C-alpha cells in the first residue's frame, strides 16, 4: 500500500491574490502531499465537484479579498448538501479576528492568516489529516 495525502487547493470568488496559494501549492508538494491546484475564480460548486472527483483528503481555500465570510461556509455547506462529511475544509488569507469564530462555527476545521509559517501549516496537516481508506 502506498497512501498519499491528496489536497485540493482553490481560490474561490473573484480575488486575484494567488501568490500565497502558489507558495502553498509548492510547499505541499515538497511536504510529500499530492496537491491539485485549481487557481483563481473558482465557484463553490466547482470546488465541491473537484473535491469529489479527485477524492481528496482536504480542501484548502485561499481568499485575501474579504469574501471569506460568505465563500468558506458556502463550500462547507455545499459539501454537506452533497452528502460529503469526510473532507475537512481549511482556509487562509486576510481573516480578521472577529470572523474566526463564525467560520469555525460554520464548520471550517482550521484557519491560517498572514505570518503563519509554512512549517506550522504542514505540521497541522500531518497531525490532523490522514490519507483515507
Amino acid at each position, binding site marked *: 500500500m502506498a497512501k*498519499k495525502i491528496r489536497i485540493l487547493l482553490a481560490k474561490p470568488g473573484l480575488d486575484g491574490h494567488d501568490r500565497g496559494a502558489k507558495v502553498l501549492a509548492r510547499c505541499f*508538494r515538497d511536504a510529500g502531499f*499530492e496537491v491539485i491546484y*485549481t*487557481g483563481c475564480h473558482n465557484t463553490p460548486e466547482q470546488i465541491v465537484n473537484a473535491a469529489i472527483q479527485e477524492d481528496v483528503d482536504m480542501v484548502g481555500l485561499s481568499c485575501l479579498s474579504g469574501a471569506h465570510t460568505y465563500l468558506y461556509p458556502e463550500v462547507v455547506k455545499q459539501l454537506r448538501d452533497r452528502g460529503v462529511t469526510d473532507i475537512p475544509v481549511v482556509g487562509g488569507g486576510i481573516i480578521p479576528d472577529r470572523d474566526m469564530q463564525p467560520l469555525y462555527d460554520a464548520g471550517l476545521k482550521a484557519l491560517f492568516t498572514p505570518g503563519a509559517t509554512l512549517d506550522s501549516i504542514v505540521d497541522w496537516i500531518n497531525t490532523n489529516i490522514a490519507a483515507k481508506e
Partner: protein
Amino acid sequence: MEELGKRALTGDIRAVSRLIRNIEDQVPNTHEAIKHIFPFTGRAHVVGITGAPGAGKSTLTDQLICSIRAQNKTVGVMAVDPSSPFTGGALLGDRIRMLRHADDPGVFVRSLATRGAMGGLSKAVGDGIHVLDVMGKDVIIVETVGVGQQEVDIINHAHTVLVVLVPGMGDEVQAIKAGLMEVADIFIINKADREGARKLYKETLSMMDMGKFPSGWRPPIVMVESNMEPHTFAKSVDELYEKIQEHYAFLKDRNLLQERAQLKVQTEINDALRSAILEPVLNKLIESGEFDEMVQKLLKKETDPYTLADEVAAKYLVK
C-alpha cells in the same frame, strides 16, 4: 470492495473516485472490485494525448471536451503529472485548464501523479480507464506527463494517440524520428500563433512522406489555431475531433481495434502477474529480513544476483 465496484457500475461518482483512489494507493482487495467490473469494460473510445510539458495538452483537452459534449457524448479525463522524485509529492495542475467543465455531470476529471512510474503514466491508468469506462463515459482522454521520447506507454492503453508538437522546440522533429512516429495516430501542430508553425507543419509532412504505414492509416497532421482566438480555436478542435472519430471508425472497420485491445491486455496480464507473484514474494523477503541479507551477500560478493534469484524461485515458486 466488491460493493465499490457495484456502485461504480451505476455511475456513482463517489464510488468511482474512491475506486480510482484505492487503485492508486494499492489498497488490498481493490482487485476484487476490478474483477467485478471487468466483464463490462471495453465500451469507451480511449484517446491518449502526449507531447512535451507546456505543449498545450491540457488546454486542448479542455476544448476537446467541448467538441465531444456538443455531440452529447460523455467524457472521462485522466491527467497525469509527475511526482517529485525527492519528496514523493506532486503538483497536479491540469485541472486548472478544465475548470469550466467542473459542473457538467457528463464530464469526470481526475488528476493522477506518476508515483515513480516511468513511461509517462501512472500505474493506476490502466484500471482507471476500466472504471471510467464502466461508469458509462463514452470517450476517455488520458493526458500523459510528456517528458521524453521513451514515453510511449500510452500506446498500450489508448485506441487513438494524439501527439502534440509546438513550434520553437528545436528537436521536435528529431523526437518524431526517435519513436513518437510509431505512436502517433494523429499529429497536432499546436500554438499556431507562434512563429514557425507552418515550418513545423511542412517538416512533419515531409517526415510523413518518408514513413511507411502498414496498417493503411497515414497519421493526419492537424493544425490547431491559437487558444487566444476562441472561435477559430474551437473550430479547429472540432475538426480535430472529426479526425479522432475517423481514426476510431478506421480501427473498427479494419478489425484493428482488437489489435489495440491486445496491447492493453498483454500489459494487464504482466501487471497482474507481477502483483500476484512477484510482489508477495518481495514483501515476504523484505519482512523476513532476507532481502537485506541478500543485499549484504551481494555487496561482499559472496554470491551473484542470478544464483539468489534461482534460490528464491526454488523456495517460493511451486513448479
